């Protein structure tokens, strides 16, 4: 059973938004990723999004592109990412983990084989950036068969028809992309986001997370006031990159940053 609904129920019960940090698996190395995942939970993460490296990440900005390239240079594969989740699960059976990436590595492994291996590793869901509902039937079926959620994106360009289409297939939560752009883009317009969330909630009962363009605790706090989850990626990944010379400091420094995000979410 996916851990995602239970997590959201608990967070809702305590009257706050969930905090979802994103890191690229294998950046700078698999050991650090596993250590960092535990540190993220200790700092207040409610769900971890783990980026699966792909050679051609068309929805990602420069920061996550470079993280992807660093992981690929180490030879990190989808199988390796699942191994990292398995190691994390050995000590943490509660925190949901969602893989975020692109279709081709999954297609190469095979949908059914991926679903079985992901469940066995302790994955709760997947967000496959280049699979809109129009192309997702087979993947949804394979994941559902293993009780995994397929998390869909919604965008500022998603009109009522598209929201309805996604409402029909989404599970776990939906991820609202707050800006037209790639990950790490700047300047999210809070009023505009609020308006879109209202439109989404008329059709979708699942929790709605907001991501892309949340780079600091202040913005995280403001988004937490209107969203069910706050998703922060590039701001974390960029800090990991800045610590390349001293990787042993990554868990502490990133943990402190994420704790700051959590505090801002609690304060709002």
């Amino acid at each position, binding site marked *: 059973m996916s851990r995602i609904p239970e997590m959201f129920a608990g967070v809702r019960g305590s009257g706050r938004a969930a905090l979802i940090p994103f890191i690229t698996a294998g950046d700078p190395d698999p050991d650090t990723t596993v250590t960092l995942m535990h540190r993220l939970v200790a700092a207040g993460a409610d769900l971890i999004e783990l980026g699966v490296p792909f050679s051609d990440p068309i929805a990602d900005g420069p920061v996550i592109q470079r993280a992807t390239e660093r992981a690929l240079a180490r030879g990190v594969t989808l199988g390796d990412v699942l191994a990292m989740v398995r190691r994390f699960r050995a000590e943490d059976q509660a925190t949901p983990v969602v893989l975020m990436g692109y279709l*081709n590595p999954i297609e190469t492994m095979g949908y059914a084989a991926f679903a079985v291996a992901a469940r066995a590793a302790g994955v709760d869901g997947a967000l496959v950036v280049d699979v809109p509902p129009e192309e997702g039937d087979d993947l949804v079926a394979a994941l559902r068969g293993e009780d995994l959620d397929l998390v869909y994106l919604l965008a500022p360009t998603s009109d009522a028809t598209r929201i309805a289409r996604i409402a029909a297939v989404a599970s776990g939560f939906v991820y609202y992309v707050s800006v037209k752009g790639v990950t790490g883009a700047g300047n999210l317009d809070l009023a505009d986001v609020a308006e879109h969330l209202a439109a989404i909630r008329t059709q979708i009962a699942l929790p709605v997370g907001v991501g892309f363009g949340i780079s600091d605790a202040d913005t995280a706090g403001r988004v937490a006031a209107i969203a069910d989850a706050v998703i922060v990626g590039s701001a974390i990944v960029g800090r990991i990159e800045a610590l390349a010379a001293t990787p042993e400091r990554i868990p502490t420094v990133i943990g402190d940053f994420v704790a700051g995000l959590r505090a801002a979410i609690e304060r709002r």
Partner: protein
Amino acid sequence: MATSTDNVVPGTVRAGLASYDWPDARGHFGPYGGMFVPETLMHPLAELQAAYARYLQDPEFLAELDADLRDYVGRPSPIYHAERLSREYAGAQIFLKREDLNHTGAHKVNNTVGQALLARRMGKPRIIAETGAGQHGVATATVAARLGLECVVYMGEVDVARQEANVYRMRLLGARVVAVKSGSRTLKDALNEAMRDWVTNVDHTFYIIGTVAGPHPYPAMVRDFQAVIGREARAQMLERTGRLPDALVACVGGGSNAIGLFYPFIDDQDVALHGVEAAGEGLETGRHAAPLNAGAPGVLHGNRTYLMEDANGQIIETHSISAGLDYPGVGPEHAWLKDSGRATYAAVTDREALIAFHTLTRVEGIIPALESSHAIAYAAQLAPRLRKDQSILINLSGRGDKDMHTVAQLDGITL
């Protein structure tokens, strides 16, 4: 020369095909094609589909396209009976469809003229494009200059360095050329960056994709704009020889010149369709750009097709002497034509292409692009297997001016 059927509008060509009716409504060619893009792009793709469907039925748009192809591009392009080359290869009669004589020197402009007119009708003031060798970038910058549209061209940093002349041409034409520094810094990365730009500036930007790849409706739309090649050639061959050619030969990178030639012949079952991929240093070396010959199906750049990928689904770097064929994917319709058996796909090496380049230059006085040289090289193998009263039509998709530096370097000469 031109007959009244030459300038048939893009959409109506479908009516001439009795049984072949791909893609389906959602852009699939059998298991290939589709719309594998982030959610942000689904709405603009739907808009593009609607606009394209509408303007294909709009006589005013079609008349404008027709006039541009005639007066600006220089269509129809002739077919040329290469008699000395036919003797050299000692077999079938070889005809060349002279796309090299188009404005800007290649077939690419057929498509950019069409898409730029569409961009203007849709009220998009800004054009973006990706380019490898620079031919599509130049063809895009050219039509953007003519229509007064802002133009940004993405080009891998590696290609910027090896195609300086085309970079300068684009800048002369008023385009901003952005050197892409991510990934392998070649064509596929330029495409990635153009998609990122489009996601960001989707409200006022039209993305002119240069080949029959990308998400639906691009593979069908680019094919329809390029199908003018095959429509003209079909009428011209009937007029010249009284019958259809026995075989068509075209090089395949993304595959736009090939599909443009093949498409109007798909229902002519007696006409063999031969696509030619870049075998680079040899298929067995792994250093090539031949996904149909040595790749596997996967998903990249918005569609499912044959790809060059590793065992973990990562896209791998390609190699070809010809920058225009140096791409790890191929248009989904070619994947479908391959699987369905309607077309066959061979591959020729850098070395074979180079020999063909020199042969055509010496015996016919036509310097072909290195891309097109792959088609010539395959014809050298095919022609002796046919009788002298049979015919092969090769798409001479571009001229070789842009390749002078590359060829000179290979011959040990510095220009």
